[in-house]
């Protein structure tokens, strides 16, 4: 920027400008605006909260309130990055009793049961599997499948080569809302180097019910929420040539079958 800033008739004129003439909005309550911003965080809309912090009226863009700076710093502090996600799965005490088997896992279970009954041993490509709870639960149910995965952890279940003629299933559950770049899902799908017959993805149905009001003392992982249409739009752009079904419980579940 090549502009020299000067006060007309010298700095004295600038200093004499009235309160109204300094451009400060008189009908804008910055504290209430920041309250609304914090509500956005409580609703799992962290990206939108950042946007609100960057889009104050111009006067406050140049005179950023201390509270806005504090919120931004706290957000950055609480947000999970790859460093915090690394090894998080190893700290989870897994419940393998299947008592809380969520809808997405039940759909996958039925799909593998049906394939097994047709003497097909499907191959599961699990992206961001966390503590591999789905794989462990499905094994506990006695289902037959081969498994490979991509995640941040170094250790995990051994990867098995798919059987000939195995149906290939790609899963990416409850991950898109954590990703700054949603397309990492598709990038990792391609890195598996096996075209999928079926893809299954899920994300929370709007705001996650576990989100609480005390965001400063919570680890923040979700960057945004999705409506079913928004979720379908982005996933449909990634995975082309699939026929889609959508289910909702506390999550939105998309199942794409290769046409």
């Amino acid at each position, binding site marked *: 920027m090549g502009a020299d800033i000067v006060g007309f008739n010298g700095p004295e004129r600038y200093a004499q400008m009235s309160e109204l003439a300094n*451009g400060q909005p008189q009908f804008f309550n910055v504290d209430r605006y920041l309250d609304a911003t914090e509500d956005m965080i409580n609703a799992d809309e962290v990206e939108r909260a950042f946007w609100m912090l960057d889009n104050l009226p111009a006067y406050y863009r140049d005179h950023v309130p201390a509270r806005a700076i504090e919120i931004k710093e706290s957000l950055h502090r609480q947000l999970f990055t790859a460093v915090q996600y690394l090894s998080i799965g190893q700290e989870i005490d897994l419940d393998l009793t299947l008592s809380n088997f969520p809808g997405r896992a039940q759909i996958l279970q039925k799909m593998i049961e049906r394939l097994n009954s047709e003497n097909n041993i499907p191959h599961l490509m699990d992206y961001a599997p966390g503590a591999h709870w789905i794989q462990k639960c499905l094994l506990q149910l006695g289902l037959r499948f081969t498994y490979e995965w991509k995640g941040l952890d170094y250790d995990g279940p051994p990867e098995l080569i798919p059987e000939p003629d195995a149906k290939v299933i790609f899963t990416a559950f409850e991950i898109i809302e954590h990703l700054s770049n949603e397309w990492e899902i598709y990038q990792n799908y391609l890195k598996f180097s096996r075209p999928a017959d079926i893809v299954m993805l899920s994300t929370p149905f709007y705001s996650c019910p576990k989100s609480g009001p005390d965001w400063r003392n919570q680890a923040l992982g979700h960057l945004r929420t999705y409506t079913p249409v928004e979720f379908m739009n982005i996933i449909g752009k990634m995975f082309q040539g699939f026929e889609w079904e959508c289910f909702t419980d506390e999550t939105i579940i998309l199942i794409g079958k290769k046409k």
Partner: protein
Amino acid sequence: MNELGRPKYFNLEMHINAIEGMIRSDEIQIALQMCDQVPGWYRDHYPPELEAIKNTLYRQCYDQIEYATDDEEANCTRAFGEAQWDNGYMFPRAEIISKIIRKMNEEDQIPWIYDLGCSHGNLPLGLIKAGHTFTYRGAGMNFRIQEKVKSWVGERWAENPLPDRPKILYCTEVLEHCFNPHDIVHSAHKIGVEFDVIILSVPMYTLGGGLPDWNTRRIGHVRTWTPKEFADFADSAFRGYQWELTLSDSMVLKGMRK
């Protein structure tokens, strides 16, 4: 209504209040975006209050047709335009352009001014009153005003600059009305003139503290500018100029071709 996924700790009323505060601060574009930036549940169960705000804004905001056909603006008088030169309305841009033209006249130069967004003709009327020598072309969306200004300026009106005369682009208090500020850049470049001097101005931040009565009055300003945003925009839109920024109620950028 299915409450599944509805955020429990999001106060819609507070969000609406924040949006209205934004409108009252001249930040119409941001306010409209905020209307769409609600949590996912509300994007699928869209609050009627937000729909009402958007519709009020669309109704109250000047659009291009209104700028082009506004009768009240078109009925402005020469006396009204002249008065704006004297009554502080044009401070400090009037003083800045006056100083530039005075210096040019002292050096026996007669500049050609392209007044983009010529409003009520306050620039040429003021310059005539101040005794400056210049030629002039005004461009605005309201054709009736433009014709009036043309008649007021008389023989000074010149569609094109003469060779070897300094060429000035003057575009003040327009950018804050533009949903796309690059419209101004397009207009400036369309006439195919390389300007020696460029004068631009916008209100510094929110003009006059803002609009408490936004839902019952006409709205012209759709955004505000910080000094840095303004200078960065000018520098990227018009390359090859040395800029000087004057801060006042209205910020003025003077660009001199390097």
